[in-house]
């Protein structure tokens, strides 16, 4: 019984923590991304890349994983590394869970920290390259 309570309370606090995490990510998204990427990550054709039902594809390659952290909005964001990692992981499952690979693993804080120190200089060109490769891979 004691064990059960311990496990239950652990599960309970994890759930609360998870909800709180999502809520914070949602606010960080609103304040740092939503202005351009819009409320559900839908973006704007020709101006702002769409994330809804799409951003998960990037997780199919290491290059794609890196690119998502090296785009200027993420790499240069005022959020710290931990908040950035939380936001990215929330975004991937919230906007594009169906496109994630079976072996999807969330970003770690260290991974985000290392990648964002090397921001991408030509995001449009690199996006095209990364997506071309992934689409060949998925075909």
């Amino acid at each position: 019984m004691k064990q059960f309570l311990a496990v239950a309370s652990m599960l309970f606090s994890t759930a609360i923590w998870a909800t709180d995490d999502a809520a914070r990510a949602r606010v960080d998204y609103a304040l740092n991304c939503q202005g351009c990427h819009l409320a559900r990550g839908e973006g704007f054709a020709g101006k702002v890349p769409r994330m809804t039902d799409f951003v998960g594809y990037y997780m199919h390659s290491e290059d794609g994983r890196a690119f998502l952290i090296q785009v200027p909005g993420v790499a240069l964001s005022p959020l710290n590394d931990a908040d950035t990692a939380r936001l990215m992981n929330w975004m991937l499952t919230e906007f594009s869970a169906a496109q994630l690979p079976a072996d999807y693993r969330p970003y770690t804080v260290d991974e985000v920290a290392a990648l964002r120190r090397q921001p991408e200089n030509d995001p449009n060109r690199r996006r095209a390259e990364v997506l071309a490769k992934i689409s060949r891979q998925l075909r």
Partner: protein
Amino acid sequence: MKKLLPFLLALLLLVMGTAMAQLQPEPMGKIETLPEKWPAHWVLAHDVSFSRVMDGRTIVLDLDEENPARAYKGMMNNSFAAFMAQATTRPEIYFASIYYSRGTRGERIDVLEIYDKQTLSPIGEVVLEVPRAILLPQRFTMQLTRDESLVLLYNFTPAMSVSVVDPVARELRGEVPTPGCAAVFPTGERGFSSVCADGTLYTVQLDADGQPASTSRSAQFFDAGVDPLIEKAAWHAGKAWFPTFMGQLQPVDFTGDQPVIGEAWSMIDEETTGWRPGGLAPAAADADGRVYMLAHPEGREGSHRDPGMEVWVFDPDQQQRVDRYELAMPGLGVSLTRDREAPLLVVLNVEMALDVYDARTGELRKTVANFGAETPLLVYGAE
């Protein structure tokens, strides 16, 4: 008397006829022109016409002319909070305007317009493929490279980039992405830097065709989360002095191919605790490299564009304030004439008039008002 009248009338007509014959009619179609090199105390009042942005105009004023009517030398039209830049090696002025085919609606076209300084007329244009940024006017949205071979324009779509135009060949050279980095600061002979959100400078050197030859990022030198750098810098001969929200002055030397970031120091001392820089064009430098800064005494969150009550004069090499000028009317922008001998400090006041001060003493010389401008938010000393 009755007999005399016809005679007198005939005489009168004869006299009048002679007078008429002697009077040369003034020539039809005479248009004034201006000198190729403008006197040092001429300025350009860039009126973006804030509430009628399609009808911008830039007015040329002679600040030495005592008669206000004659101080007005002419004007140039431009549109939609146009970017503006002057060449020094060619008698040309550039505007980046936006036009809609139906005035406020229809097809949009962005165009770099080349004006001749003698005729104040457009002599050429380059159509811009990437829409330029639209924002409150400031100087570092359009600049010439130091060698004056290229014009650089800041774009925001909201992706950030810089358009490169050859103003001599009158051709668009391309678009350089500046991800997360805004504005253009000429760097080296043919390059530029932009200020980035992570507190760095992103520098691009261009080749003779205006294509990127090299790119680099500086080390982080400010923290926008703690004390944001204000990109509206004082500029003279390739050197910039950036104010920050909290009153630091950050020197950057852009004369070489890589910007050299100097040591920042505080413009605030015990006498001026609580003061902060403020305004739309808060900073300018004179030909001796002295920095003029608008400052206001009620610094707080959100006060970074409040009008200045004083202009402070700094010797940036000595990191010292050398003077404080109390303004006759709070100011939103400062600019300097180009001369060393008797430079004028022009302050755009909150009534949208130009207060002209002796830059060396801070003495108010005159106020230029009611010259046909609605919101001349930027004033440029003639190059």
